[in-house]
Protein backbone atom coordinates (compact mmCIF):
# COMPACT_ATOMS: atom_id res chain seq x y z
CA UNK A 1 0.00 0.00 0.00
CA UNK A 2 1.41 3.41 -0.90
CA UNK A 3 0.99 6.83 0.61
CA UNK A 4 -1.48 7.63 -2.18
CA UNK A 5 -3.97 5.48 -0.34
CA UNK A 6 -3.76 7.53 2.81
CA UNK A 7 -6.84 9.56 2.14
CA UNK A 8 -8.96 6.43 2.15
CA UNK A 9 -6.62 4.32 4.21
CA UNK A 10 -8.65 4.29 7.38
CA UNK A 11 -11.74 3.05 5.60
CA UNK A 12 -9.81 0.44 3.61
CA UNK A 13 -8.35 -0.86 6.82
CA UNK A 14 -11.83 -1.35 8.19
CA UNK A 15 -12.96 -3.28 5.15
CA UNK A 16 -9.83 -5.44 5.30
CA UNK A 17 -9.83 -6.52 8.85
CA UNK A 18 -13.23 -6.17 10.44
CA UNK A 19 -13.66 -9.67 11.76
CA UNK A 20 -17.34 -9.23 12.36
CA UNK A 21 -18.76 -7.97 9.07
CA UNK A 22 -22.21 -6.96 10.18
CA UNK A 23 -22.46 -3.54 8.72
CA UNK A 24 -25.66 -4.53 7.01
CA UNK A 25 -27.67 -3.72 10.10
CA UNK A 26 -25.61 -3.17 13.16
CA UNK A 27 -22.47 -1.88 14.67
CA UNK A 28 -20.86 -5.26 15.12
CA UNK A 29 -17.53 -4.20 13.71
CA UNK A 30 -16.34 -2.80 17.02
CA UNK A 31 -17.01 -3.42 20.66
CA UNK A 32 -17.60 -0.06 22.34
CA UNK A 33 -16.04 -1.44 25.54
CA UNK A 34 -13.02 -3.14 23.90
CA UNK A 35 -10.27 -3.41 26.48
CA UNK A 36 -12.38 -1.97 29.30
CA UNK A 37 -12.33 -4.05 32.50
CA UNK A 38 -15.96 -5.11 32.80
CA UNK A 39 -15.62 -7.19 35.95
CA UNK A 40 -18.68 -6.69 38.15
CA UNK A 41 -17.53 -5.09 41.44
CA UNK A 42 -17.69 -7.24 44.57
CA UNK A 43 -20.98 -6.89 46.38
CA UNK A 44 -22.90 -5.80 43.27
CA UNK A 45 -25.47 -8.17 41.79
CA UNK A 46 -24.53 -8.66 38.12
CA UNK A 47 -28.06 -9.48 37.00
CA UNK A 48 -29.46 -6.36 38.64
CA UNK A 49 -26.66 -4.22 37.26
CA UNK A 50 -27.36 -5.57 33.77
CA UNK A 51 -31.07 -4.85 34.11
CA UNK A 52 -30.26 -1.32 35.24
CA UNK A 53 -27.86 -0.67 32.36
CA UNK A 54 -30.55 -1.96 30.01
CA UNK A 55 -32.98 0.66 31.33
CA UNK A 56 -30.50 3.50 30.80
CA UNK A 57 -29.40 2.09 27.45
CA UNK A 58 -32.95 1.63 26.19
CA UNK A 59 -33.86 5.23 27.09
CA UNK A 60 -30.97 6.45 24.93
CA UNK A 61 -31.50 3.94 22.10
CA UNK A 62 -35.21 4.57 21.65
CA UNK A 63 -34.94 8.33 21.98
CA UNK A 64 -32.04 8.36 19.55
CA UNK A 65 -34.23 6.57 17.02
CA UNK A 66 -37.06 9.05 17.51
CA UNK A 67 -34.63 11.94 16.94
CA UNK A 68 -33.23 10.24 13.85
CA UNK A 69 -36.75 10.20 12.42
CA UNK A 70 -36.55 14.02 12.32
CA UNK A 71 -33.62 13.90 9.90
CA UNK A 72 -34.88 15.23 6.52
CA UNK A 73 -37.92 16.71 8.33
CA UNK A 74 -36.44 19.45 10.51
CA UNK A 75 -37.42 23.07 9.77
CA UNK A 76 -33.84 24.19 9.04
CA UNK A 77 -30.58 22.52 8.13
CA UNK A 78 -28.97 23.76 11.36
CA UNK A 79 -31.63 22.05 13.48
CA UNK A 80 -31.35 18.90 11.42
CA UNK A 81 -27.60 18.84 12.10
CA UNK A 82 -28.23 19.46 15.79
CA UNK A 83 -30.79 16.65 16.09
CA UNK A 84 -28.60 14.20 14.17
CA UNK A 85 -25.67 15.02 16.46
CA UNK A 86 -27.75 14.65 19.61
CA UNK A 87 -29.12 11.34 18.30
CA UNK A 88 -25.55 10.20 17.60
CA UNK A 89 -24.37 11.04 21.12
CA UNK A 90 -27.31 9.12 22.58
CA UNK A 91 -26.68 6.17 20.28
CA UNK A 92 -23.09 6.11 21.53
CA UNK A 93 -24.31 6.11 25.12
CA UNK A 94 -26.77 3.33 24.30
CA UNK A 95 -24.09 1.19 22.69
CA UNK A 96 -21.85 1.35 25.76
CA UNK A 97 -24.72 0.74 28.18
CA UNK A 98 -26.11 -2.22 26.24
CA UNK A 99 -22.61 -3.69 25.95
CA UNK A 100 -22.22 -3.19 29.70
CA UNK A 101 -25.53 -5.00 30.28
CA UNK A 102 -24.50 -7.98 28.14
CA UNK A 103 -21.25 -8.38 30.10
CA UNK A 104 -22.68 -7.81 33.57
CA UNK A 105 -25.32 -10.54 33.36
CA UNK A 106 -22.90 -13.04 31.85
CA UNK A 107 -25.30 -13.71 28.97
CA UNK A 108 -22.71 -12.66 26.40
CA UNK A 109 -25.40 -10.84 24.42
CA UNK A 110 -23.84 -7.98 22.49
CA UNK A 111 -25.28 -4.58 21.72
CA UNK A 112 -26.84 -5.79 18.47
CA UNK A 113 -28.56 -8.77 20.09
CA UNK A 114 -30.05 -6.45 22.68
CA UNK A 115 -31.06 -3.67 20.29
CA UNK A 116 -32.45 -5.74 17.44
CA UNK A 117 -33.58 -9.07 18.82
CA UNK A 118 -35.68 -8.17 21.84
CA UNK A 119 -39.44 -7.77 21.66
CA UNK A 120 -41.46 -4.82 22.86
CA UNK A 121 -42.16 -6.22 26.33
CA UNK A 122 -38.44 -6.72 26.94
CA UNK A 123 -37.59 -3.04 26.46
CA UNK A 124 -37.14 -1.13 29.71
CA UNK A 125 -37.22 2.50 28.51
CA UNK A 126 -39.44 5.14 30.08
CA UNK A 127 -42.49 5.91 27.97
CA UNK A 128 -41.45 9.54 27.45
CA UNK A 129 -38.94 8.54 24.78
CA UNK A 130 -41.11 6.28 22.65
CA UNK A 131 -43.80 8.74 21.63
CA UNK A 132 -43.44 10.60 18.33
CA UNK A 133 -43.40 14.41 18.39
CA UNK A 134 -46.40 16.14 16.87
CA UNK A 135 -44.26 19.09 15.77
CA UNK A 136 -40.96 20.86 16.39
CA UNK A 137 -42.28 22.57 19.54
CA UNK A 138 -43.17 19.22 21.10
CA UNK A 139 -39.73 17.99 20.12
CA UNK A 140 -38.11 20.94 21.93
CA UNK A 141 -40.26 20.34 25.02
CA UNK A 142 -39.56 16.61 25.12
CA UNK A 143 -35.84 17.13 24.54
CA UNK A 144 -35.71 19.64 27.38
CA UNK A 145 -37.49 17.28 29.77
CA UNK A 146 -35.46 14.26 28.70
CA UNK A 147 -32.03 15.89 28.71
CA UNK A 148 -32.60 17.74 32.00
CA UNK A 149 -33.67 14.49 33.67
CA UNK A 150 -30.92 12.38 32.12
CA UNK A 151 -28.24 14.94 32.92
CA UNK A 152 -29.25 14.89 36.59
CA UNK A 153 -29.41 11.08 36.53
CA UNK A 154 -26.04 10.47 34.87
CA UNK A 155 -24.51 13.26 36.92
CA UNK A 156 -25.41 11.24 40.00
CA UNK A 157 -24.04 8.07 38.38
CA UNK A 158 -20.55 9.52 37.99
CA UNK A 159 -20.18 8.39 41.61
CA UNK A 160 -21.57 4.89 40.95
CA UNK A 161 -19.89 1.92 42.62
CA UNK A 162 -19.64 0.34 39.17
CA UNK A 163 -16.57 1.98 37.60
CA UNK A 164 -17.76 1.21 34.06
CA UNK A 165 -21.12 2.87 34.64
CA UNK A 166 -19.37 5.81 36.33
CA UNK A 167 -17.03 6.23 33.34
CA UNK A 168 -19.91 6.10 30.83
CA UNK A 169 -21.78 8.63 32.95
CA UNK A 170 -18.81 11.01 33.15
CA UNK A 171 -18.55 11.03 29.35
CA UNK A 172 -22.29 11.42 28.87
CA UNK A 173 -22.68 14.36 31.25
CA UNK A 174 -20.73 16.71 28.97
CA UNK A 175 -22.89 15.73 26.01
CA UNK A 176 -26.18 15.96 27.87
CA UNK A 177 -25.38 19.42 29.23
CA UNK A 178 -24.99 20.59 25.64
CA UNK A 179 -28.25 18.91 24.57
CA UNK A 180 -30.12 20.47 27.46
CA UNK A 181 -28.84 23.94 26.71
CA UNK A 182 -29.83 23.57 23.04
CA UNK A 183 -33.35 22.47 23.98
CA UNK A 184 -33.70 25.15 26.65
CA UNK A 185 -32.79 27.91 24.19
CA UNK A 186 -35.43 26.67 21.75
CA UNK A 187 -38.09 26.52 24.46
CA UNK A 188 -37.25 30.12 25.38
CA UNK A 189 -37.30 31.24 21.74
CA UNK A 190 -40.66 29.62 21.11
CA UNK A 191 -42.25 30.63 24.40
CA UNK A 192 -40.99 34.19 24.27
CA UNK A 193 -41.65 34.45 20.51
CA UNK A 194 -44.88 34.98 18.62
CA UNK A 195 -48.40 34.12 19.74
CA UNK A 196 -48.28 31.10 17.45
CA UNK A 197 -44.94 29.79 18.74
CA UNK A 198 -46.03 30.43 22.33
CA UNK A 199 -49.21 28.40 21.77
CA UNK A 200 -47.26 25.59 20.11
CA UNK A 201 -44.67 25.20 22.87
CA UNK A 202 -47.45 25.39 25.46
CA UNK A 203 -49.19 22.51 23.70
CA UNK A 204 -45.91 20.64 23.24
CA UNK A 205 -45.04 20.75 26.93
CA UNK A 206 -48.61 19.81 27.86
CA UNK A 207 -48.30 16.73 25.63
CA UNK A 208 -45.13 15.45 27.32
CA UNK A 209 -45.99 16.45 30.89
CA UNK A 210 -48.11 13.37 31.73
CA UNK A 211 -44.92 11.33 31.23
CA UNK A 212 -42.76 13.33 33.66
CA UNK A 213 -43.75 11.63 36.94
CA UNK A 214 -42.67 8.24 35.62
CA UNK A 215 -39.11 9.59 35.35
CA UNK A 216 -38.95 10.12 39.10
CA UNK A 217 -40.70 6.92 40.21
CA UNK A 218 -38.05 4.46 41.40
CA UNK A 219 -38.15 0.88 40.14
CA UNK A 220 -37.32 -2.06 42.44
CA UNK A 221 -34.20 -2.73 40.35
CA UNK A 222 -32.91 0.77 41.09
CA UNK A 223 -33.72 0.43 44.77
CA UNK A 224 -31.93 -2.94 44.81
CA UNK A 225 -28.64 -1.32 43.76
CA UNK A 226 -27.86 1.27 46.44
CA UNK A 227 -24.66 3.13 45.65
CA UNK A 228 -24.57 1.68 42.16
CA UNK A 229 -27.84 3.04 40.77
CA UNK A 230 -29.12 6.56 41.34
CA UNK A 231 -32.27 7.24 43.36
CA UNK A 232 -34.44 9.14 40.85
CA UNK A 233 -36.54 10.65 43.66
CA UNK A 234 -33.51 12.70 44.69
CA UNK A 235 -33.24 14.23 41.20
CA UNK A 236 -36.60 15.96 41.17
CA UNK A 237 -35.33 19.13 42.86
CA UNK A 238 -32.65 19.78 40.23
CA UNK A 239 -35.13 19.02 37.45
CA UNK A 240 -37.75 21.39 38.85
CA UNK A 241 -35.21 24.18 39.34
CA UNK A 242 -33.96 23.94 35.75
CA UNK A 243 -37.46 23.69 34.28
CA UNK A 244 -38.70 26.63 36.35
CA UNK A 245 -35.76 28.74 35.18
CA UNK A 246 -36.38 27.90 31.52
CA UNK A 247 -40.15 28.30 31.76
CA UNK A 248 -39.78 31.70 33.44
CA UNK A 249 -37.41 32.91 30.69
CA UNK A 250 -39.85 31.54 28.13
CA UNK A 251 -42.86 33.28 29.77
CA UNK A 252 -44.52 29.88 30.13
CA UNK A 253 -46.45 28.39 33.00
CA UNK A 254 -45.61 24.96 34.37
CA UNK A 255 -48.07 22.53 32.74
CA UNK A 256 -50.71 20.89 34.87
CA UNK A 257 -51.30 17.33 33.79
CA UNK A 258 -52.48 14.06 35.23
CA UNK A 259 -49.66 11.48 34.99
CA UNK A 260 -50.18 8.80 32.36
CA UNK A 261 -51.34 5.74 34.27
CA UNK A 262 -49.62 2.38 34.08
CA UNK A 263 -51.34 -0.96 34.27
CA UNK A 264 -51.41 -2.53 37.71
CA UNK A 265 -48.53 -0.23 38.65
CA UNK A 266 -46.45 -1.33 35.66
CA UNK A 267 -44.92 1.29 33.34
CA UNK A 268 -42.09 1.52 30.81
CA UNK A 269 -39.44 0.20 33.21
CA UNK A 270 -41.53 -2.97 33.61
CA UNK A 271 -41.90 -3.47 29.87
CA UNK A 272 -45.34 -1.91 29.65
CA UNK A 273 -45.31 0.52 26.76
CA UNK A 274 -47.57 2.70 24.69
CA UNK A 275 -48.72 1.53 21.31
CA UNK A 276 -46.05 3.74 19.71
CA UNK A 277 -43.10 1.57 20.72
CA UNK A 278 -44.19 -1.41 18.60
CA UNK A 279 -44.21 0.67 15.44
CA UNK A 280 -40.84 2.16 16.27
CA UNK A 281 -39.30 -1.28 16.83
CA UNK A 282 -40.85 -2.64 13.66
CA UNK A 283 -38.95 0.02 11.73
CA UNK A 284 -35.73 -0.08 13.75
CA UNK A 285 -35.40 -3.87 13.79
CA UNK A 286 -36.79 -4.74 10.36
CA UNK A 287 -33.50 -5.24 8.48
CA UNK A 288 -31.81 -7.11 11.31
CA UNK A 289 -34.76 -9.47 11.62
CA UNK A 290 -35.30 -9.97 7.91
CA UNK A 291 -31.64 -10.83 7.35
CA UNK A 292 -30.33 -12.21 10.66
CA UNK A 293 -26.54 -12.11 10.93
CA UNK A 294 -26.30 -10.72 7.43
CA UNK A 295 -22.99 -9.34 6.18
CA UNK A 296 -21.81 -7.42 3.16
Amino acid sequence: MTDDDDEYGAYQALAEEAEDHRWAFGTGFTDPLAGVDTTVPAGVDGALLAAYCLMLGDDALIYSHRLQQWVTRAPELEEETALANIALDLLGQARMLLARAGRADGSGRDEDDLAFLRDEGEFRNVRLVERPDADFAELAGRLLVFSTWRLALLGALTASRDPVLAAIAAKSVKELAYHRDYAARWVVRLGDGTDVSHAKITAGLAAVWPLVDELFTPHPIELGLPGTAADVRALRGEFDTVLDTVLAAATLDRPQAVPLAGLGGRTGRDGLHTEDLGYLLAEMQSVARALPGSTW
Partner: protein
Amino acid sequence: MSPPPVPAAGIAAAVPDPELPMVTVADLGILRQVREDGGHVTVTITPTYSGCPALAEISADLSRRLRQAGYHDVTVRTELSPPWTSDWITAEGRRKLAAAGIAPPRPAGRLPASGPVPLRLTAGPRPVPCPRCGSARTRETSAFSATACKSLHRCEECHEPFEYVKEI
Protein backbone atom coordinates in the same frame (compact mmCIF):
# COMPACT_ATOMS: atom_id res chain seq x y z
CA MET B 1 14.14 -11.28 14.97
CA SER B 2 15.32 -7.67 15.20
CA PRO B 3 12.76 -5.16 16.38
CA PRO B 4 11.25 -2.81 13.78
CA PRO B 5 13.39 0.33 13.31
CA VAL B 6 10.74 2.91 14.23
CA PRO B 7 9.29 2.81 17.77
CA ALA B 8 5.63 1.82 17.89
CA ALA B 9 4.78 5.00 19.78
CA GLY B 10 6.04 7.10 16.86
CA ILE B 11 4.04 5.11 14.31
CA ALA B 12 0.84 5.36 16.36
CA ALA B 13 1.27 9.06 17.07
CA ALA B 14 1.53 9.85 13.34
CA VAL B 15 -1.83 8.28 12.44
CA PRO B 16 -4.16 10.98 11.09
CA ASP B 17 -7.67 11.44 12.39
CA PRO B 18 -10.11 10.19 9.71
CA GLU B 19 -12.50 13.13 10.12
CA LEU B 20 -9.84 15.82 10.66
CA PRO B 21 -6.92 14.48 8.58
CA MET B 22 -4.85 17.64 9.11
CA VAL B 23 -4.21 16.51 12.71
CA THR B 24 -3.02 13.21 14.17
CA VAL B 25 -4.65 11.14 16.88
CA ALA B 26 -1.83 12.26 19.18
CA ASP B 27 -2.50 15.93 18.35
CA LEU B 28 -6.15 15.43 19.35
CA GLY B 29 -5.36 13.66 22.60
CA ILE B 30 -7.27 10.56 21.46
CA LEU B 31 -4.11 8.44 21.74
CA ARG B 32 -3.59 7.80 25.44
CA GLN B 33 -0.79 5.25 25.62
CA VAL B 34 1.40 2.99 23.50
CA ARG B 35 3.09 0.15 25.31
CA GLU B 36 5.61 -2.27 23.79
CA ASP B 37 6.02 -5.55 25.65
CA GLY B 38 8.31 -7.93 23.79
CA GLY B 39 6.77 -8.16 20.35
CA HIS B 40 3.34 -7.12 21.59
CA VAL B 41 2.04 -3.57 21.22
CA THR B 42 -0.94 -2.31 23.23
CA VAL B 43 -2.42 0.97 22.06
CA THR B 44 -4.95 2.77 24.28
CA ILE B 45 -7.34 5.26 22.73
CA THR B 46 -10.27 7.25 24.10
CA PRO B 47 -13.38 8.46 22.28
CA THR B 48 -14.01 12.20 21.96
CA TYR B 49 -17.80 11.85 22.06
CA SER B 50 -19.76 8.71 23.00
CA GLY B 51 -21.10 8.28 19.49
CA CYS B 52 -18.00 9.30 17.56
CA PRO B 53 -18.13 7.01 14.52
CA ALA B 54 -14.46 7.61 13.73
CA LEU B 55 -13.26 5.47 16.62
CA ALA B 56 -13.62 2.23 14.65
CA GLU B 57 -11.65 3.70 11.75
CA ILE B 58 -8.97 5.01 14.09
CA SER B 59 -8.60 1.63 15.73
CA ALA B 60 -8.33 -0.19 12.39
CA ASP B 61 -5.91 2.38 11.01
CA LEU B 62 -3.63 2.12 14.05
CA SER B 63 -3.46 -1.67 13.63
CA ARG B 64 -2.81 -1.40 9.90
CA ARG B 65 -0.01 1.16 10.15
CA LEU B 66 1.70 -0.65 13.00
CA ARG B 67 1.53 -3.89 11.01
CA GLN B 68 3.06 -2.19 7.99
CA ALA B 69 5.86 -0.96 10.23
CA GLY B 70 6.62 -4.51 11.33
CA TYR B 71 4.50 -4.85 14.48
CA HIS B 72 2.31 -7.87 13.89
CA ASP B 73 0.88 -8.36 17.35
CA VAL B 74 -1.20 -5.28 18.14
CA THR B 75 -4.10 -4.77 20.55
CA VAL B 76 -6.10 -1.54 20.46
CA ARG B 77 -8.08 -0.95 23.62
CA THR B 78 -10.53 1.75 24.66
CA GLU B 79 -10.30 3.73 27.87
CA LEU B 80 -13.29 5.81 28.94
CA SER B 81 -12.02 7.37 32.13
CA PRO B 82 -11.13 10.14 32.57
CA PRO B 83 -13.37 11.40 29.76
CA TRP B 84 -11.74 13.16 26.82
CA THR B 85 -11.53 16.92 27.05
CA SER B 86 -10.66 19.36 24.27
CA ASP B 87 -7.92 20.63 26.61
CA TRP B 88 -5.94 17.54 25.57
CA ILE B 89 -5.53 18.89 22.03
CA THR B 90 -1.83 19.78 21.83
CA ALA B 91 -0.36 23.16 20.87
CA GLU B 92 0.75 21.58 17.61
CA GLY B 93 -2.77 20.26 17.04
CA ARG B 94 -4.25 23.71 17.64
CA ARG B 95 -1.81 25.27 15.19
CA LYS B 96 -2.71 22.71 12.50
CA LEU B 97 -6.46 23.15 13.04
CA ALA B 98 -6.19 26.94 12.77
CA ALA B 99 -4.05 26.62 9.63
CA ALA B 100 -6.82 24.50 8.11
CA GLY B 101 -9.43 27.16 8.89
CA ILE B 102 -10.89 25.40 11.95
CA ALA B 103 -10.89 27.48 15.12
CA PRO B 104 -9.21 25.54 17.96
CA PRO B 105 -11.05 25.16 21.28
CA ARG B 106 -10.75 27.58 24.15
CA PRO B 107 -10.02 26.14 27.60
CA ALA B 108 -12.91 23.97 28.77
CA GLY B 109 -14.66 25.14 31.90
CA ARG B 110 -14.51 22.55 34.62
CA LEU B 111 -17.81 20.85 35.36
CA PRO B 112 -18.65 21.07 39.07
CA ALA B 113 -17.27 18.07 40.94
CA SER B 114 -20.65 17.63 42.54
CA GLY B 115 -24.03 19.26 42.20
CA PRO B 116 -25.93 20.34 39.12
CA VAL B 117 -24.31 21.44 35.85
CA PRO B 118 -25.21 25.13 35.35
CA LEU B 119 -27.76 25.92 32.66
CA ARG B 120 -26.59 28.18 29.82
CA LEU B 121 -29.45 29.97 28.10
CA THR B 122 -27.27 32.07 25.81
CA ALA B 123 -24.21 31.34 23.70
CA GLY B 124 -20.91 32.21 25.36
CA PRO B 125 -20.26 35.91 25.93
CA ARG B 126 -16.96 35.91 24.05
CA PRO B 127 -17.15 35.24 20.30
CA VAL B 128 -14.71 32.73 18.78
CA PRO B 129 -11.95 34.58 16.88
CA CYS B 130 -12.03 33.99 13.10
CA PRO B 131 -9.26 31.52 12.16
CA ARG B 132 -8.84 33.25 8.76
CA CYS B 133 -8.63 36.98 9.54
CA GLY B 134 -8.42 36.95 13.33
CA SER B 135 -11.44 39.21 13.78
CA ALA B 136 -13.39 38.91 17.00
CA ARG B 137 -16.57 40.00 15.16
CA THR B 138 -18.00 36.52 14.66
CA ARG B 139 -21.23 34.83 15.59
CA GLU B 140 -22.33 31.26 16.17
CA THR B 141 -24.65 30.13 13.36
CA SER B 142 -25.21 26.61 14.67
CA ALA B 143 -24.35 24.91 17.95
CA PHE B 144 -23.68 21.72 16.00
CA SER B 145 -21.82 20.98 12.79
CA ALA B 146 -20.66 18.20 10.47
CA THR B 147 -19.00 16.24 13.26
CA ALA B 148 -19.93 15.85 16.91
CA CYS B 149 -16.93 17.85 18.08
CA LYS B 150 -17.59 21.10 16.16
CA SER B 151 -19.99 24.06 15.94
CA LEU B 152 -20.54 26.43 13.02
CA HIS B 153 -19.70 30.15 12.99
CA ARG B 154 -19.48 33.08 10.60
CA CYS B 155 -17.06 35.99 10.54
CA GLU B 156 -18.76 39.38 10.16
CA GLU B 157 -15.45 40.90 9.03
CA CYS B 158 -14.33 38.61 6.19
CA HIS B 159 -17.78 36.98 5.84
CA GLU B 160 -16.34 33.46 5.78
CA PRO B 161 -18.12 30.65 7.59
CA PHE B 162 -15.87 28.50 9.76
CA GLU B 163 -16.01 25.62 12.16
CA TYR B 164 -14.92 25.62 15.78
CA VAL B 165 -13.85 22.64 17.87
CA LYS B 166 -16.18 22.95 20.87
CA GLU B 167 -14.61 23.18 24.30
CA ILE B 168 -15.73 20.26 26.44
